[in-house]
């Protein structure tokens, strides 16, 4: 601690460490939730099915951010950009190339993965606030990219594109909304299981080592650069698939649907759900879909303020979000049993 003191900084951890086991739910709980998700649509109206579909889709996007932040400790305020990329990829392929909607999703995922990987390369050098800054700029710039004149033939410019909603295949006797719900549920389930396994694997451990102490991780032989860019790519890829699904579900894409507001919502969803707790992503998604509806019904433009206030409440009272609430609930139930 001498003359050089002013130039040496011990960086505060970007994200609090979450143990691997605390990232998921137990088997029984998972199966019960899955059963509820499978059965509920049979008893509710189409509009509610649509909203449940959107919860799953946003849940995927929040999950992707959660892998990036909770897993590798990097954070992004630019998820809306990758979401938009996926949505436009799906929409353009469906409308201009007449591709089957299900086939557009892997393409959307791949395109977003590539974009995320490439953006992750320079972002590698950045950590903490700098990364937040670069991704913030990415999110604000994205709508302008989408409005570009020479892309207008494909993207429809400011007007955007209208997407046709798919019918249930093989003549199944269910409505479009319900089919889309089950279709989304299947994809969500696959990605969720994949993500859980990813975080439990060797790669997942490497990511968490980077999250907790980058320099120590690299001393242990973890290829920090590779894993960080990969985390960015995987996160962007999943977000892209969510974007593609979102485009199919709302049947419409337009540049102004993918502004910084969406990025903030996804970020908020992650914080509310609990950083690093994967099931929390869907709690967070439900939050960012239903809260604005309630707020907007009281007064137009109120949702931003409500979001902000709630975000502060979460930060101050339950910094671990829904995960903390779940743990507290569990303890209370445990006490009642005694």
């Amino acid at each position: 601690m001498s003359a050089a003191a002013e130039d040496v900084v011990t960086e505060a951890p970007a994200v609090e460490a979450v143990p691997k086991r605390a990232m998921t739910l137990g088997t029984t709980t998972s199966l019960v939730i899955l059963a509820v998700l499978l059965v509920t649509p049979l008893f509710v109206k189409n509009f509610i099915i649509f909203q449940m579909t959107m919860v799953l889709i946003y849940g995927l996007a929040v999950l992707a951010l959660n892998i990036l932040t909770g897993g590798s400790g990097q954070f992004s305020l630019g998820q809306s950009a990758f979401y938009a990329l996926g949505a436009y990829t799906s929409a353009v392929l469906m409308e201009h190339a007449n591709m089957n909607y299900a086939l557009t999703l892997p393409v959307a995922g791949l395109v977003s993965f590539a974009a995320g990987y490439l953006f992750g390369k320079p972002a590698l050098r950045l950590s903490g606030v700098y990364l937040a800054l670069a991704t913030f700029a990415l999110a604000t710039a994205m709508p302008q990219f989408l409005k570009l004149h020479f892309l207008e033939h494909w993207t429809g410019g400011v007007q955007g594109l209208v997407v046709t909603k798919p019918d249930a295949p093989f003549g199944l006797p269910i409505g479009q909304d319900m089919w889309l719900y089950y279709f989304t549920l299947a994809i969500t389930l696959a990605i969720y299981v994949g993500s859980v396994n990813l975080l439990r694997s060797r790669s997942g451990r490497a990511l968490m080592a980077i999250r907790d102490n980058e320099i120590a991780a690299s001393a242990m032989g973890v290829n920090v650069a590779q894993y960080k860019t990969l985390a960015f790519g995987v996160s962007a890829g999943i977000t892209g698939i969510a974007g593609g699904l979102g485009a199919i579900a709302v049947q419409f894409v337009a540049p102004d649907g993918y502004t910084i507001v969406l990025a903030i919502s996804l970020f908020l969803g992650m914080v509310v759900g609990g950083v690093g707790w994967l099931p929390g992503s869907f709690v967070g998604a439900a939050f960012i879909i239903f809260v604005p509806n309630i707020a907007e019904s009281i007064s137009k433009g109120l949702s931003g303020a409500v979001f902000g206030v709630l975000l502060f409440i979460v930060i101050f009272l339950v910094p671990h979000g829904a995960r903390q609430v779940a743990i507290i609930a569990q303890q209370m139930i445990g006490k009642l049993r005694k």
Partner: protein
Amino acid sequence: MELFTNQVLAGISTGAIYACLALALVMIYQAIDHLNFAQGEMAMFSTFISWQLMQWGVPYWWAFVLTIAFSFAAGIAIERALFKPLTKAPILTQVAGFIALYSIINSTAGLIWDFTIKQYPTPFGSSPFLGSQLISTHQAGMIGVTLLMLVGLYFFFQFTRIGLAMRAAAALPESARLVGINTSWMIALGWGMAASIGAVAGILIAPVVFLEPNMMLGTLVYGFAAAVLGGLTSPLGAVVGGFLVGVFENLAGTYIPGVGNELKLPIALALIVTVLVFKPAGLFGRAIVKRV
């Protein structure tokens, strides 16, 4: 050639605004090591306050002074109430706090004054400055007010006790505390000053971009670009970066084909990423060494 000079001068005048905003960002960054994502929204809100005062019949310069005083108090209040308790929280939590503030201010402004675009007056008029076609009186006024403010800040930090105390608190908080400086209040003071500087920037740019809740988003991104270019640890760098970015923005818009108004934000993005990748410390900043 005339087009070139014209664009450079126009760039300098918008650059003055970026310089103000970048300076406000750097002041908070130096104090707490965080970027205030809500800086632009705070400036926007201040601008709305001044507009409201003028609607109630307060003369321009009185509204100007009152708004700055209000912003100063509001900046301190925000720091005391919301960010002081978060000092030791992980980076993610702090970023979430700034994002929450951004969202609250943006939405509240929309609720109070709705989202329609409003005209904003300028005290300088918009006739050609000194009979030259190159620059309008408002642009000259923007540059003038900014320079005046910068000189004032320079004297404040160099020649007053409290300015010295603020510099000490930012540079070496522990040592500053040992010599009896209340570093916690110095941070609050920094927030207040940053909010006031932002208010000046907002009031000056409002006649150009018009008054509405989202008016500062583009400006904020350019302010970030300016702060990063100059180096986040250097107030002088922020100012120089602001002017450079302003000129660069205008020249790129004029001379690079395909880059018009519609690509302004992607240009700022490219600038930020380029600087962060090739010279993360910026032009004037000092490199940071990390400890395991």
